[in-house]
């Protein structure tokens, strides 16, 4: 560091960071505190930030209030896992093609994939609905998986291509000279070297798939048994009142695994986020 901070500056920085992080984390802090409060306390005035007689009761009672809750959490995982699998299988060869071969139309195709990224599923909802209906996929897992994967493929191709460009070409060429076929080179030379990049793409895809499960699930599926967590949570919205404490508890249980992923893999995430900043 060139110049040191004076203590007033350090204090100012911490104050700034505190305000910034409060904005970022307030909903989670409040959500967690709500999950600890008894329901009666939530609906009483004056408002109190800190729970009185806080307990983890909601984390136990929520499974009875919404019996399908466990299934919703499982569905979210299942859908994201299959989406990730599809994306990886499709993206790895495509990224390799873009990283290594100069063919006519490559630039145009890359641009096309980038443009796809700019369209949200919400705009294409009507034809997608028709397509899912024609293919007989409405009210199945596939109605959420198939379109979900489509909107994650383009950014993943860009991200992985960038990574593969960093692998020296001499390695492929050496394998060629030794008489390896193109497919063999891809499998035995490139794939192992690209593994860290593939892992980043897989993590980003999984998180993306998990985070974006709303509109397709809302529109293409009405069966409880296939509902992912974000839609399943609406079950806590009763006719009379919303069971807020259990809703928050269920939210936390549902996002806990993703939170763990952040803590352990944040290095990869920052790298991936900045390299592939093509989708918000």
């Amino acid at each position, binding site marked *: 560091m060139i110049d040191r901070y004076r203590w007033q500056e350090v204090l100012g920085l911490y104050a700034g960071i505190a305000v910034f992080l409060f904005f*970022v984390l307030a909903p989670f802090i409040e959500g967690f505190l709500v999950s600890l409060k008894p329901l009666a306390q939530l609906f009483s005035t004056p408002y109190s930030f800190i729970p009185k007689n806080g307990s983890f009761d909601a984390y136990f009672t929520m499974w009875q209030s919404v019996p399908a809750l466990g299934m919703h959490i499982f569905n979210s995982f299942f859908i994201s896992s299959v989406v990730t699998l599809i994306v990886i299988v499709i993206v790895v060869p495509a990224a390799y093609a873009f990283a290594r071969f100069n063919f006519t139309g490559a630039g145009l195709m890359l641009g096309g994939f980038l443009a796809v990224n700019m369209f949200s599923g919400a*705009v294409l909802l009507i034809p997608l609905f028709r397509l899912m209906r024609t293919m007989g996929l409405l009210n199945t897992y596939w109605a959420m998986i198939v379109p979900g994967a489509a909107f994650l493929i383009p950014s993943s191709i860009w991200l992985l291509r960038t990574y593969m460009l960093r692998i020296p070409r001499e390695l492929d060429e050496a394998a060629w000279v030794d008489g390896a076929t193109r497919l063999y080179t891809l499998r035995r030379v490139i794939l192992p070297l690209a593994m860290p990049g593939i892992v980043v793409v897989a993590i980003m895809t999984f998180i993306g798939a998990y985070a974006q499960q709303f509109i397709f699930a*809302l529109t293409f599926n009405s069966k409880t048994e296939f509902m992912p967590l974000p839609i399943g949570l609406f079950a806590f919205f009763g006719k009379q009142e919303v069971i807020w404490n259990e809703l928050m508890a269920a939210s936390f249980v549902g996002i806990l695994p993703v939170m763990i992923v952040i803590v352990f893999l944040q290095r990869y995430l920052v790298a991936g986020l900045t390299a592939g900043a093509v989708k918000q």
Partner: protein
Amino acid sequence: MTSTRSATLFALALLAPALIYILTIVAYPLVDTILLSFTNASLRADYDFVGWANYQRIFGAGNFTEVIIRTFIWTFFSVSMKMIIGMCGAVLLNAAIPGQALFRILTMPPWIVPMAIGIFMWGWMYNGQFGMISGLLQNFGLIGGPIAFLAYGDTAFWATIVTDVWIGVPMVTIYFLAAMQSIPRDLHEAAWTDGAGRFYRFRRITLPLMVPAIITMSLLSLIATFNSFDIIWILTQGGPSGSTTTMIIDTYKTAMGSRKYGEGAARAVVISLFVTIFCIVYFRAVRRLQQGEAK
């Protein structure tokens, strides 16, 4: 590598799954939207070609023009706030102080957590009688009575923007932070030796060098914000009395709510036209920035 014919065929074979997938699930629906927008398609199985009728109807009533203007105002404020707060966050997280790594991790949850869940939490915070924002403001005596933020047009409009900003800020912050760190350190050192203060260096070195990052991020953010659906749908469903109805929400209501596929498709086409314009601007900007780098 050799660009022989067999190499091209191999590359195309590798690309085929991706191409087929995107053509089926994105390109075909896009074409279908355009075709549908000229029909009176609804829940009934059969429908007819109606020419420009849908477009005349949505622009004739004046209602949709209002929605377009609202969408742009909504997007403008959301994106500007994301950029400003993201920049402040990047400056703060770039400071070499203890806890830096932890603070960076703590920035990420809104980006990583399923959007809908974060929005539910905001829904509670905006609750007039028992929510945190109204509650705390009352406890500190800043407001006299409870404010149900989502119940009135003006407050609902801003409430949905704040939530959208909240979701977008982590991404912007991390991206700006990365851009900031790629600025060569000797520039700052040289300026420092010449006696330039911290603020001066930020204004004269950091900020100008971050212009490409700011342009890229604002355009990407613009497109994402323009397409924002979940936040408004969960918080207000476009209400109260249309005050948060953006183009996406309006399209969804027309198509999926009223099952007027043709009219909905016409709206979707208008959205797509705007997105296409943004894309062209984005590609141009990226190309110009790359050329700038090459020089």
